[in-house]
C-alpha cells in the first residue's frame, strides 16, 4: 500500500517538476485568487462584526407632538416595537431629555438655565434596530404615526447608509475580483494538467498496455491538481497573515495604540486549504475528463 502511495506521489511530483513554469503560474494565481477571496471575506466578516457593535450605538430619536396624551404615548410604544427590524424602544419624558441635553452640553448652562419651568424639549422615544439597512424603512413608518412631530424622526441616516453600502460593495468586490481570479487560476490548473497528460502520453500508453488500472493511471494527475490548490491556499494564508500584521502595525501607529483583533490563523488556513484542494481536484477532474472522452470517441 505504501509502495503504491509512494509511486503515485512520485509520479505527481515528477509531473509538477516537468511543467515547472506552468505549475508556478497555476500555484501563484490560485494563491492570488484565494488571497483576494479569503482576504475580502475576512475583511467583510471583520467589518460586519464591527458594524454589529456600532448598531447598538446607532439609535433613532422619535420626537412626539405637544399635547399627546399619556394613553396615546403608551399605545405608541407597542406599535413601534411591532415594526420589523426594531430591537428596542425606550421612552424618555421631556424632563429626562432636557437633563441629558444639559449633561451632554456642559458649556451652555447659562442658556439652558430656567428651562425646567417651560421645558421646550419633546417627549421622546429612543429606538434601536437590528440591521442598519432597515433604518430608513423604520423611520418612514414611524414618521407616519400622527403622534410624531413632522420631521420628528432623527437619526444618522447618511452615515448608516454609507456603512451599509460599503459592506455591500465589499461583498460584491470580493465576489467579482475573487471570481475572476478563481476562474483564471482554474484555467491555469486545467492547462497544467492537460500539459501533463500530453507530456505523459507515453507513460499512460505503457501503463494501459501492461494492465495498470485507471486509479494508477489517473490518480497522479488528481494529486497534481490538489497539490497546486493546497499550495495556493497555503501561500494565500501566509500573505494574508503578513498583510494582517502590517495593517495591525499601521493602525497601532495611527490610532494611538488601537490595533486590530487577533488573526484567525487556524480557521483561515483550514478553509483556504480546503477551498484550494477542492478547487484543484475539480480542475484536474475537468482536465482529465476531456481527453478521456475524446479518447473514447476516437476508439468508438
Amino acid at each position, binding site marked *: 500500500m505504501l*509502495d503504491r502511495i509512494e509511486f503515485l506521489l512520485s509520479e505527481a511530483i515528477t509531473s509538477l517538476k516537468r511543467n515547472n513554469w506552468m505549475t508556478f503560474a497555476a500555484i501563484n494565481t490560485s494563491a492570488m485568487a484565494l488571497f483576494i477571496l479569503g482576504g475580502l471575506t475576512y475583511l467583510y466578516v471583520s467589518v460586519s462584526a464591527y458594524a454589529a457593535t456600532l448598531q447598538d450605538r446607532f439609535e433613532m430619536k422619535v420626537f412626539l407632538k405637544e399635547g399627546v396624551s399619556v394613553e396615546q404615548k403608551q399605545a405608541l410604544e407597542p406599535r413601534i416595537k411591532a415594526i420589523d427590524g426594531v430591537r428596542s424602544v425606550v421612552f424618555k419624558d421631556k424632563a429626562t431629555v432636557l437633563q441629558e441635553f444639559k449633561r451632554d452640553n456642559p458649556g451652555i448652562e447659562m442658556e439652558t438655565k430656567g428651562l425646567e419651568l417651560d421645558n421646550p424639549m419633546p417627549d421622546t422615544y429612543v429606538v434601536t434596530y437590528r440591521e442598519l439597512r432597515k433604518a430608513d424603512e423604520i423611520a418612514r413608518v414611524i414618521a407616519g404615526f400622527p403622534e410624531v412631530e413632522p420631521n420628528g424622526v432623527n437619526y444618522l441616516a447618511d452615515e448608516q447608509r454609507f456603512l451599509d453600502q460599503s459592506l455591500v460593495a465589499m461583498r460584491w468586490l470580493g465576489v467579482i475580483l475573487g471570481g475572476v481570479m478563481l476562474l483564471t487560476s482554474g484555467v491555469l490548473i486545467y492547462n497544467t494538467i492537460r500539459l501533463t497528460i500530453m507530456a505523459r502520453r507515453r507513460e499512460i500508453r*505503457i501503463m494501459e498496455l501492461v*494492465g*495498470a488500472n485507471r486509479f494508477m493511471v489517473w490518480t497522479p494527475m488528481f494529486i497534481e491538481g490538489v497539490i497546486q490548490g493546497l499550495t495556493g491556499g497555503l501561500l494565500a494564508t501566509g500573505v494574508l497573515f503578513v498583510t494582517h500584521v502590517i495593517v495591525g502595525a499601521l493602525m497601532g501607529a495611527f490610532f494611538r495604540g488601537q490595533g486590530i483583533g487577533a488573526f484567525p490563523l487556524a480557521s483561515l488556513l483550514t478553509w483556504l486549504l480546503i477551498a484550494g484542494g477542492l478547487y484543484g481536484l475539480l480542475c484536474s477532474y475537468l482536465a482529465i475528463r476531456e481527453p478521456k472522452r475524446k479518447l473514447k470517441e476516437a476508439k468508438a
Partner: protein
Amino acid sequence: MVAQQPYVLFDRVEVKYSETVSGLRSVSLEIEKGDFVWLLGQSGSGKSTFLKCLTREVKNTSGSVKLDGRSVTDLKRDEIPHLRRQMGIVPQDFGLLPNKKVWENLAYAMRAVGKTRRDVRRMVPLILERVNILHRADAFPNELSGGEQQRVAIGRALINNPPLLLADEPTGNLDTAHSREIIDLLFEINRQHGTTIVVATHDLMVVREFPGRIVNMEFGRIRAAGEPDEMDGSDDGLDDFEPVQVRKNPLLQEEDSRLLADDPDFEDDFESGNRGEPSLNPDSGDEKERPYA
C-alpha cells in the same frame, strides 16, 4: 462430455471503423494454448486490428472474441486492465520511455501494475536476463540498437508472467540479423514457458524461415491458415504475396482516391513500383511501405 474450449477463439468477428471502412470481416480462428502463430499480411490486412480485439483496444462490432473461455467482447471498461495483465503486449514502436534506463523501463511498468519495490528488485534482473539484455540494464533506450530495444519491449511484456504474448511487427524496424534474434527469443519463451505467442508481421522471409502456424490475412479476412508444410502448393496466398495486392484492396480504395487526388503522379509511381511515399497503412500511421520479399 463438454468439449474443451480453445485458448483464443474468434468467432465470425467483424470490426467496422465506419460505414465504409472495415478492420475485420467475419474472422473465425482458434488458437490453442502454447501455439506459436504468425499473423501474416500486408498493411491494412487486419493483423493489428486482430491483436487490438484481443487486447480490447478495439471492440468488435459483431461476433465473439474469447480468451481462455471468457468473453473479451463483453468485458466492462474496469475489467480491461485485468485482461491486459493476462497478456504481454509488444507494440510496433517498442514504446520505451526515453528518459528512463532499461531497468527503469521495466520497473516503471511493474510499479504501475502495483508491484512492490521488493518485487521490482527481485524480478527485473531475472526478466532482463531472460531476454538477454541484463548487460545493458543501465543504458538509456537511445543508446541501444533496434534489436536491444525490442528485447527490452519484450522484457516489459513479460512483467506479469503472462500466458499469452502478442507482438505487433516485432521485426518491422530491424535488419535481418536482429529480426532472427528477436524471433529466436520469442520461440525460446514459447518453448521454455509454454507461452502462447501471436506475432503480426508482413515479413514473409521471417515467416518462411521459422516454424509456427501461419494465418494469412487479406482485406480483413483470413485467406488461409495452417502449418507451412500444409500450406505448400495450396491457395494460401503466400506465392502471390506482393505489394501490388495493396492496389486491389477495397478497404483502401477510399484512401487511394484521396491520394490520387492529392498527387496526380501517384498512380504512375505506383505502377512503376516507386512506393516510397505515402503510406497506405491505416493502422501504422506514418509507417512507410516496406519490401515484402
